[in-house]
């Protein structure tokens, strides 16, 4: 039996390796045919394209590597903001679904039911072309100014593209988070609600201090995968003209014709992003669980 499993493993490895070798060989043949080998030298050449927004100084005479870095930072910006806002919205909507106010409850239910059944890409297009580009010029006080040229919050200017992607990701992911929160909250025994009510705590306070902490261990792992989804979904920004990592990679690949190299860089960047998020969440998870254990 041991011999058979060994044989099987050798067979599988040989097949896998042969398959990979076949692919790589085909790639080599095809690249040779078009006269191009793998090469990353172009990364140092000036990109020649401008970007609408960049967190760090960037001009078209900067090289491709820097352009990609700016794209990565833009992605990071919208992901980070999206994580925070989607969490807030999701927890609020999840809490609203267990609220005692029927109207609030059904409103939250409707939000989840509609948003989760419509493709994100369509929602992004809606937010951008209909909602944000349809904004009339409306200064609300000195601190907030809305227009379809951009939005200024407390003196901080935000492009409408950024706002559309952020809104789309927040609303879409928020609905999923609301479901997770509701599931976690439902797992907390009803007796806990009765207990804090009998102590005279208000609904909101009881939810925040009693129910949510107990629901967290069930919520956190699912939340991590939603965060990763949000990061992956941010690549749809290309559809509304936001210069994220995927959009910049796409432009780079077209201009240089370096599809394989560009794709590899994209993969590596995303693996990095994933590690960042899962690592962060693992940290939070450990802290939360640790605190729970200590308090017990």
């Amino acid at each position, binding site marked *: 039996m041991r011999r058979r499993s060994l044989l099987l493993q050798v067979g599988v490895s040989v097949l896998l390796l042969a398959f990979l070798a076949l692919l790589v060989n085909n790639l080599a043949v095809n690249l040779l045919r078009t006269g191009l080998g793998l090469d990353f030298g172009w990364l140092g050449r000036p990109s020649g394209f*401008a970007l609408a927004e960049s967190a760090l100084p960037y001009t078209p005479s900067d090289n491709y590597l820097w352009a990609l870095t700016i794209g990565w930072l833009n992605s990071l910006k919208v992901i980070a903001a999206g994580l925070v806002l989607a969490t807030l919205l999701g927890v609020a909507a999840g809490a609203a679904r267990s609220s005692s106010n029927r109207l609030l409850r059904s409103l939250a239910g409707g939000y989840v039911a509609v948003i989760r059944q419509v493709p994100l890409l369509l929602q992004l297009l809606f937010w951008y072309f209909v909602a944000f*580009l349809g904004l009339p010029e409306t200064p609300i006080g000195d601190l907030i100014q809305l227009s379809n040229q951009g939005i200024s919050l407390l003196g901080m200017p935000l492009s409408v593209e950024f706002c559309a992607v952020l809104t789309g990701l927040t609303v879409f992911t928020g609905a999923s988070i609301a479901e997770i929160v509701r599931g976690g909250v439902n797992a907390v025994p009803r007796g806990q609600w009765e207990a804090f009510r009998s102590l005279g705590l208000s609904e909101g306070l009881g939810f925040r201090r009693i129910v949510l902490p107990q629901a967290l261990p069930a919520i956190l792992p699912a939340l991590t995968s939603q965060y990763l989804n949000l990061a992956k979904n941010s690549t749809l920004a290309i559809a509304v003209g936001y210069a994220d990592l995927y959009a910049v990679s796409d432009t780079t690949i077209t201009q240089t014709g370096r599809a394989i190299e560009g794709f590899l860089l994209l993969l590596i960047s995303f693996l990095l992003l994933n590690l960042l998020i899962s690592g962060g969440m693992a940290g939070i998870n450990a802290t939360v669980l640790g605190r729970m254990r200590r308090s017990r």
Partner: protein
Amino acid sequence: METSAVRQEGLRIWDNPSRIVPTLMFRTCNRLLVGATVGLAALVGGCASMDGASVSRLDLVKQRGELLCGVSGKIPGFSFLSAEGAYTGLDVDICRAMAAAFVGDAEKVQYRPLTAPERFTALRSGEIDLLSRNTTWTLSRDSAGGNGLSFGPVVFHDGQGLLVPEAAGIRSLKDLSGKAICVGSGTTTEQNLNDTFAAEGIPYTPIKYQDLNQVVGGYLQGRCAAMTSDRSQLASARSGFADPEKHVILADRLSKEPLAPAVVGGDQTMADAMTWVVLALIEAEERGITQANVNAMVEQAEADASQTALRRFLGIDGALGSKLGLPDDFVVQVIRATGNYGEIYDRHLGPATPVAIPRGANRLAENGGLMIAPPFT
């Protein structure tokens, strides 16, 4: 040796089940061959050197009996999906002319709607045989060290312009300083915009979209102070606005945009065939050969041995087609299918169409334009 035999026979899976049945045995053998060959190649590893260049894409097209043509599908007048669900336009007719010459039937074309960013990769990867998609002929795209394509003759001379709302009071580039400009990403348009504004030292914000449709959407929704594209496309887009007269194209010309079809580089046979099909369209217009009179012209030339140049052009003498790897009468096939260049232009961009772009630089050289064909001898 086996490998080249295999490569000529393009195996197409699932596309057309009815074609699979009769050739099933042949295909199975071939598949085995492919399997054996690539298996061997895999064993040899990266050392395998294959002379892929020896087989032209043209042979593959002929064998397949169908041309895979990349178009935009979203530009009225050039390639556009009509309400009947068929592609029409100048770029589409170029594909049809090619198919008429290559496989003898202008309808044997598979159109692949491509976005600007994906078009070269599609060509390079073999996803399409020929690109006929408002593509500007540039050095880096044409060269082996760049995108590695081969361009054919120009089918439309264009230039990049800027469309602005008249009411905005923008009269020159300087007025656009610091403003947002809507532009399609991955296009030369984007680079020209950058080159021009950088040279003039005018700051601006590019708002990049994937296709012209969204550029127009963004512009009309007021996201940008101006939109930029080839002037033909600006005119074509403006023709659809509710109030075309309220938008003006600035006099500044950001670039020259010679639009031309392209094939993958390093394939002389394919490139030559493409080049001379386009030239035949122009030559036919010079000679006054049209879709309506081409049959009569052939009869007339066959009867009159003194019409030597015409007889060569129509493939009665000289076997010019064979030199390109095409049928000798390819010109006749092409004109029957699409008419000459002037006819194609009028059909899609002429005064009777909604787009209505004056012919300008696209007139024949003898009428003061830039269109001219070298001799068919």
